[in-house]
């Protein structure tokens, strides 16, 4: 029976971040609320520029120099020692404290492009060992052995040879495995993956995703995926947060988002995903482009591109409406006074098809 109370690992409330450039202030994140529970996989989905990476970079304390956190909290709960649970607001920690206690040790991150993520002048082995030696003072020999183990864990053959090699001597897929090995070196509790497969070949993508899943299962860590690829989300996620223009517009379990989406932007995203059975002679795209976040946004940020927009969308931002205990969406269409608007026909058909396939499996 599922009556175990899941413990919360990460909690973001009202997070608001801006970037200051020479002539403007760009509000990249405007009031984001997010939850992650132990052992689960959360996917943050959105277009480029929606703010997905920034949210997680804030959690890691690696925001760009010209960024400013306007407000909000990021509560992170981790295990100290054997059993003790500590909760801390990551935004209140100094940079040094973040680096010493959190980065690498408790939260680890892997980035999009393995070619540029690795230091070209440092051997692969040294890069894996660096974290251990830095955080735990592990003696070199022990770190070396552990690095070999990690290389095996991430599926690299002949680790004794590879450990001495430099990043440019490895292929793309292998490099990303090394990046994952580096992330796991200090046994973190939370792993953040920022578009881990975007820069890789399609054949390798699946392997890397499977690797991350296996690692997650074996080590019991929680994972956050940042991605724009709905195919990956379907495969790995338990929970999905859809982001648009610096805010989360819909959140729910993966079934809820894929089978019962409520926000017009989510409709757009799902419709834009081509599949083999698409009848349409045209590919669907969401018209227009994301708003320029330099300007103050009045009302609903998605309104200008939303064919289902209501008049109130131009004046007021919709709150998070509850659809079920786990499913929320931020659109005025869910207000009881709003007209009944259904998702587009093609999307309905596709979802019906997906459900049928699911049942048949």
């Amino acid at each position: 029976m599922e009556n175990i109370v899941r413990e919360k690992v990460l909690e973001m409330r009202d997070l608001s971040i801006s970037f200051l450039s020479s002539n403007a202030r760009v509000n990249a994140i405007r009031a984001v609320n997010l939850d992650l529970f132990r052992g689960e996989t959360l996917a943050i989905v959105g277009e480029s520029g929606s703010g997905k990476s920034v949210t997680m970079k804030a959690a890691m304390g690696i925001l760009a120099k010209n960024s400013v956190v306007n407000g909000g909290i990021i509560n992170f709960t981790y295990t100290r020692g054997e059993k003790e649970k500590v909760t801390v607001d990551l935004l209140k920690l100094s940079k040094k404290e973040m680096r010493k206690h959190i980065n690498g040790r408790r939260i680890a991150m892997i980035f999009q492009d393995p070619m540029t993520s690795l230091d070209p002048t440092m051997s692969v082995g040294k890069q894996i060992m660096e974290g251990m030696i830095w955080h735990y003072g592990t003696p070199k020999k022990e770190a070396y052995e552990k690095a070999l183990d990690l290389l095996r864990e991430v599926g690299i053959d002949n680790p004794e040879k590879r450990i001495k090699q430099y990043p440019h001597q490895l292929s793309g897929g292998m490099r990303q495995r090394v990046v994952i090995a580096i992330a796991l070196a200090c046994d973190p509790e939370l792993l953040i993956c920022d578009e881990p497969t975007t820069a890789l070949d399609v054949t390798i993508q699946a392997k890397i995703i499977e690797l991350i899943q296996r690692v997650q299962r074996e080590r019991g860590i929680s994972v956050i995926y940042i991605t724009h690829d709905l195919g990956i989300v379907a495969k790995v996620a338990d929970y999905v947060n859809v982001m648009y223009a610096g805010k989360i517009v819909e959140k729910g379990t993966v079934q809820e988002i894929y089978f019962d989406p409520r926000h017009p932007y989510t409709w757009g995203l799902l419709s834009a995903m081509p599949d083999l059975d698409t009848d349409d002679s045209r590919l669907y795209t969401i018209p227009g482009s994301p708003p320029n976040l330099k300007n103050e946004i009045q009302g609903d940020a998605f309104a200008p591109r939303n064919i289902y927009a209501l008049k109130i969308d131009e004046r007021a931002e919709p709150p998070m409406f509850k659809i079920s205990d786990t499913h929320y969406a931020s659109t005025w269409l869910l207000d009881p006074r709003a007209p009944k608007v259904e998702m587009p026909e093609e999307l309905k058909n596709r979802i019906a098809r997906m459900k049928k396939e699911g049942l048949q499996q």
Partner: protein
Amino acid sequence: MFKQKNKRPLTAEGPDFNAKVREFLPDDFTLRGDAEATRIDTNFASQNYWLEVRSRFFGNKGSVISLMLVIIICALAAFGPMMTNYTYSEQNLAQKNFAPRVPGIESLGIFDGDENLRTTTGTKVVNGYEEKELTDVFYWFGSDTLGRDIWTRVWEGTRISLGIALCAAIIDMIIGMSYGLISGYFGGRVDDIMSRIAEIINGIPRLVIVTLLMLVLPRGFVTIVFALMITEWIGMSRIARAEMLKLKEQEFVLASRTLGAKHFFIIFREVLPNIIGQIITQLMFSIPTAIFTEAFLSFVGLGIPVPMCSLGSLISDAFNSFTTHPYQIIPPILVLALLMLCFNMLADGLREAFDPKLKEM
């Protein structure tokens, strides 16, 4: 189809109401209805490339000031010698080594023909004009050891220095550009051989080539231009070749080729306009190098033959008396330094304007 996981309750979220909305208007919940509005992209109106370049360039204060200074100096070079009634070679031994004297300003106590001379008995103030009782004679920059007007000579010299530099720079731009473009375009053996030749020529120190040439060939304007040009073109050719290699594989070249364009058409009419920015920047950079090299040659005695003068020869002449009559060496040095400084800053500004490095965000 999806992993069936426990549904865990999200913590209830408070109303995210946009505080501004206190009351609802009667038609709030009606569809906005204008589906066409969504199709317009308001954000990024594309701008003409050259307009953008221009606005970036003029936004850079350093570049603008440099440009103005260069224009002023050029204007003075063009009109300066005509502003006095001396010619650049006219000698008046009775009036040698006079300090600068400018009518009007002299009543302020500076530029009044006084100079401090260090003698064995101490410093004393000497005024050549007063000694010879010349109230109507003015040398704006003073006169040199042969009684020639420095003002006139400085601007004549600037004319010549600039002339040499411009000619050399333009010729070497044409040669270097063509060489690099052709080498890069044809690739393979041609490129190999051409690059080797360039490398070998580059291996010979500029100093050596220039010195030897100046020894063998008769002195004069043309020789100097020739000597300068021989060594400078390599820099330009490198840039042209690098750019060509970048653009060679692009589709517009392929398109042009399939339409039947001949090689030289593609090189000079398709690719060249795209790299003109880089070329102009490099041109601007090679001007100060040319000025410097010419000045250096003159200083060493290999430059412009007497009685013509260039900035370098002026500095050389004035060098011998620079402890006794420092005012003689200051104007040419100032002009030289300013010219080089301004052209360098100009070139820097141009480079930024054509290819801005967006370090923010």
